[in-house]
C-alpha cells in the first residue's frame, strides 16, 4: 500500500497480501507481476534489443507481424530572464502511420516541474510517471519540494540501468526551485546535461536553427512565446515525423502555466499573412 511504502515499513513487516514471489525462470507470475513494485520482464537467453529488431525495424516484419511503436517528435526548451520556455509538437507516428495529431508530450510532474517527451512514447510516459511518483515520495518524506537537479538525476539513474536494451527516450526536465529556473536534458543512455537551451527529437536541427537565430537571454515574454512557437512550427513544416499542434508552457517562479495550443495549419496561414 502507498502509505506503507512511504514509511519504509515493508522492510520489517512481512507482506501477507499478494506475496511477491521473486520472478523465477520456472514459474512466471502473470497475475500479480508488477502489481506492487515496478518490474520489467525480459526474454531469457537473448539480447532484448536484437530480439525485437526483426519485428519493429523491418518493413514486413516476421510473417506479417510488425510491432510499430509510437515515435518521433520535436521538442525544445530554453531559459531566459523570465524563466523557462517549453514548446513541443503533438504528432505520434507508428512507422509511417500518423497515430495521432493530439499527443501530449509535456508531462506535468508537479506545479513546479515539467518533463518533455521525445523518442518512444511508451518509454517516456512510463519513466516520467515513475519520476512523478518518486518526486511525490521525496516531498512527503522531506517536507520540501525536490530540486530540478535531483529529479533529473533520479530519472537518469533509473534509465541507466537499462542501457543498451533498446529504450529510446530524450527528455528535458524543466522546473523552478530554490536555485531559480532549472533545465536538464536526460536521455536513454543515462546522459544528463544542464544548459540554457535544448531541442530534441527528429526535428531538432530545424528548431535549433530558428531558436539560435532569435535567442537572447533578455527576451521579453511575448518575444519568447513567439520564438518558441516559430521554432516548433518550422520544424513541423520540414520534418515528416513532427506536426499536429504546438503546445507551449512557461515555467515561472510561481509554477508553470500553459500558454497556448495552436494547430500548425493555422500558424502557417498566420505567418504567411505576416510576410506580406
Amino acid at each position: 500500500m502507498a502509505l506503507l511504502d512511504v514509511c519504509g515499513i515493508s522492510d520489517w513487516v512481512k507482506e501477507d497480501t499478494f506475496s511477491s514471489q521473486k520472478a523465477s525462470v520456472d514459474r512466471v507470475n502473470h497475475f500479480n507481476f508488477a502489481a506492487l513494485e515496478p518490474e520489467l520482464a525480459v526474454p531469457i537467453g537473448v539480447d532484448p534489443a536484437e530480439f525485437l529488431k526483426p519485428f519493429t525495424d523491418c518493413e514486413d516484419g516476421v510473417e506479417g507481424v510488425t510491432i510499430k511503436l509510437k515515435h518521433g517528435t520535436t521538442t525544445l526548451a530554453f531559459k531566459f530572464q523570465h524563466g523557462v520556455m517549453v514548446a513541443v509538437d503533438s504528432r505520434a507516428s507508428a512507422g509511417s502511420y500518423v497515430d495521432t495529431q493530439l499527443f501530449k508530450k509535456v508531462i506535468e510532474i508537479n506545479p513546479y516541474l515539467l518533463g518533455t517527451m521525445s523518442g518512444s512514447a511508451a518509454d517516456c510516459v512510463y519513466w516520467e510517471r515513475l519520476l512523478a511518483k518518486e518526486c511525490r515520495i521525496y516531498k512527503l518524506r522531506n517536507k520540501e519540494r525536490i530540486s530540478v537537479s535531483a529529479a533529473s538525476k533520479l530519472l537518469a539513474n533509473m534509465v541507466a540501468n537499462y542501457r543498451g536494451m533498446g529504450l529510446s527516450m530524450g527528455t528535458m526536465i524543466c522546473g523552478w526551485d530554490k536555485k531559480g529556473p532549472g533545465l536538464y536534458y536526460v536521455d536513454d543512455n543515462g546522459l544528463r546535461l544542464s544548459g540554457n537551451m535544448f531541442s530534441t527529437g527528429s526535428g531538432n536541427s530545424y528548431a535549433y536553427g530558428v531558436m539560435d537565430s532569435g535567442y537572447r537571454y533578455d527576451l521579453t515574454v511575448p518575444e519568447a512565446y513567439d520564438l518558441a512557437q516559430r521554432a516548433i512550427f518550422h520544424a513541423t513544416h520540414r520534418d515528416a515525423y513532427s506536426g499536429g499542434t504546438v503546445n507551449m508552457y512557461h515555467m515561472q517562479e510561481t509554477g508553470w502555466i500553459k500558454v497556448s495550443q495552436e494547430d500548425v495549419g493555422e500558424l502557417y496561414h498566420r505567418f504567411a499573412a505576416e510576410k506580406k
Partner: protein
Amino acid sequence: MMMSAQAYGDKGKMKEYHYTGPVEHKFSPYAFNGGTVLAVAGEDFALVASDTRLSEGYSIHSRDSPKCYKLTDTTVIGCSGFHGDCLTLTKIIEARLKMYKHSNNKNMTSGAIAAMLSTILYGRRFFPYYVYNIIGGLDEEGRGAVYSFDPVGSYQRDTYKAGGSASAMLQPLLDNQIGFKNMENVEQVPLSLEKAVQLVKDVFISAAERDVYTGDALKICIITKEGVREEIVPLRKD
C-alpha cells in the same frame, strides 16, 4: 514460461525464387490474427465495436471471435493483433480488477483501468504483448471516454479511435465525420447515440469491403449509465 527465441539474422534480403537447399524455419513467438476495433465517446455514452473474424495467413480460423471484452459495467476493452496475447492480457486485467475490488472495496474507473493497462503493457517492454488495445467507457462524471494504446503501453484519452488491421482506412473517415477535420464552414453538431451507431455500422461495412482481415460480423457494445448493451450486425463473409 518466457520463450527464448533465437535472434534472427540477415533481415531485409530479397526472397530467393529458386530452391537452394534445406530451409530453416525458426519459431516466431507472434502471429497476426487480424481484426479491427473501433471506439467512439459521446456526451453520455461510449461505443466499442469490433469485427468477429479470426484469421491467420490465408485461412480463417473462426467467424465468431469477437474482440470486445466487457470489464466492468462502465468499461469495455477491444483488443486486436495476436489472439494468444489478447486472451492472456484480458485474463490478467480481469484478475487485477478483482484484486483491486478486494483491496479497495470499489470497482475500477475507466481512467484507472487505462493507467493500469499502461503499466501492465510496459512491464513487457522487452517482449511486448502484440496487442493493439482500445478502452471505451464512461468516466466518473458519466461522460464517454476512449483510451487508445500502443503495444508497449503509451496511451492517450481520445474522442474516437480505430485500431487493428483496417485502422489506417477507418481513422481518416472518423476524423472527417466525427472530428469535422479537413472541412470548412461546417456546423459542429455533437454526436447522438443513434447517429454514432449508424456511423459505426457504415464504417465497418466499408472496412469489410477493402480489408481482407475484417468481415463476417460486427459486434457493437453500447455503454450508457444503464449498463452495457450488445448489438450484432452481419458483414461480408468473403
